[in-house]
């Protein structure tokens, strides 16, 4: 259950629209089902009251939309940012991807967003309604008479289980209480993989990446992937590929994509959220983040505007590429 309610957000949006601070609102629009929300632009109170929603399934990170939508709105655009979204927001500002003057950012607290796939793993397919009630959600299916009570904490999306920060690093206005940066366990999975033998790791990734259908959802949703023309779409790049023709191309796409966002990835987790095949793409990004933290000092992309990412920086005494494999031994 979120601490802030739909009504509060609508009220805020309506008042900002009314006093002319903003001319449109980027928010979540309700869909066919209680768990189904679509990002949308709202222009007035009627639209907000009719379709705006805020619940445990509003995971979409709006930051990337600001690139295209700030050009579409005449005045300022109101955007609601969860703590993790604010990091992407800052990172995009660092890269001069949108005009800060055209955005009015309202920070909203987030108690973690639920993953519908996890809900379905508990209560099965055929959800007819979800009612939010305190820490629990009551999920009614077409097949059971009584609703199944599910604790939101049990169905949190992976990125929320390992939430890295409840603190907003960018906003014009904050609703609710400010949180803290969390000492999360987000690198545990990475460490687990690192502890495996190369053969086991290879088998793990082979299994995961072989499911890739190259729909490009991870790329298109990623707030760090903002190239006008992706190298993989450009026939003149010589590496264009549209499909995972074999295991090499599957790997190449994901390695290169992760590398391209390395140092700029804020670990917002959108890539894993949207993957239709549930490939744990965040494990690739987190590996880079973890490595760079260890090699070059703690760094959180988007923590401040204007930070210099590790891969576009250097010191005279950096670790040698040949030494990165043996860290485990030398640390001991």
């Amino acid at each position, binding site marked *: 259950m979120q601490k802030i309610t739909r009504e509060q957000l609508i009220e805020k949006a309506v008042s900002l629209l009314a006093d002319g601070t903003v001319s449109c609102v980027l928010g979540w629009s309700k869909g066919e089902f209680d768990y189904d929300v679509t990002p949308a632009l709202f222009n007035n109170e009627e639209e907000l009251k009719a379709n705006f929603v805020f619940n445990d399934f509003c995971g979409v990170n709006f930051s990337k939309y600001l690139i295209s939508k700030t050009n579409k709105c005449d005045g300022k655009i109101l955007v609601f940012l969860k703590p993790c979204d604010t990091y992407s927001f800052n990172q995009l500002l660092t890269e001069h991807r949108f005009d800060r003057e055209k955005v009015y950012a309202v920070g909203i607290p987030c108690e973690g967003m639920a993953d519908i796939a996890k809900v379905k793993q508990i209560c099965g397919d055929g959800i007819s309604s979800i009612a939010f009630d305190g820490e629990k959600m009551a999920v009614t299916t077409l097949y059971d008479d009584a609703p199944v009570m599910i604790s939101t904490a049990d169905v949190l999306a992976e990125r929320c289980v390992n939430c890295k920060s409840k603190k907003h690093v960018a906003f014009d206005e904050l609703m609710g209480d400010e949180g803290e940066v969390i000492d999360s366990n987000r690198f545990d999975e990475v460490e687990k993989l690192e502890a495996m033998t*190369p053969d086991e790791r290879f088998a793990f990734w*082979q299994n995961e990446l072989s499911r890739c259908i190259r729909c490009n959802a991870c790329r298109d949703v990623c707030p760090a992937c903002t190239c006008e023309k992706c190298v993989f779409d450009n026939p003149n790049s010589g590496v264009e590929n549209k499909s995972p023709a074999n295991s*090499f191309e599957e*790997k190449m796409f994901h390695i290169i994509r992760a590398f391209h966002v390395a140092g700029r990835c804020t670990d917002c987790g959108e890539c894993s959220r949207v993957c239709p095949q549930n490939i744990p793409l965040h494990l690739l990004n987190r590996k*880079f983040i973890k490595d760079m933290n260890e*090699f070059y000092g703690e760094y959180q992309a988007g923590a401040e505007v204007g930070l210099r990412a590790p*891969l576009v920086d250097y010191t005279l005494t*950096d*670790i040698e590429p040949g030494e990165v494999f043996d860290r485990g031994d030398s640390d001991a």
Partner: protein
Amino acid sequence: MQVNEYKPLIVAFCCNWCSYAGADLAGNNRLNYPAEVKIIRVPCSCRVNPMFVLRAFQRGADGVIICGCHPGDCHYTSGNYYTRRRMAALFSMLDYLGIEKERTRVEWVSAAEGAKFAATMNDFVEKVTALGENKRLEDLRCKK
């Protein structure tokens, strides 16, 4: 029965200013290093982007080595410092994906270090030969 001895294919990206000259010196001094090492000259070691490395593997390389000026000696002042960071991150990622770490290497070889160049290549080829063919980052379509 004749057994074909396995010979790996090694791609060596050598920076124009130091390592390529180092390779030259190795040749001039008649120092032996395996013919399986195919040298690609690049203006600076930081010209090598991760795609080059992956594409070399795709096209049949069994090992990829990047040679540049010693840190501090870059012709363009700082190119090799970036190489150092990028390749550290990339190689660590390849290792994470289960690709044998012995197949990738970065070495700093100056124009005067013909002997080091030859020794490095001999050692690298030996290590890769021991690993055998690159199976984990191969593109079967490119195999004859």
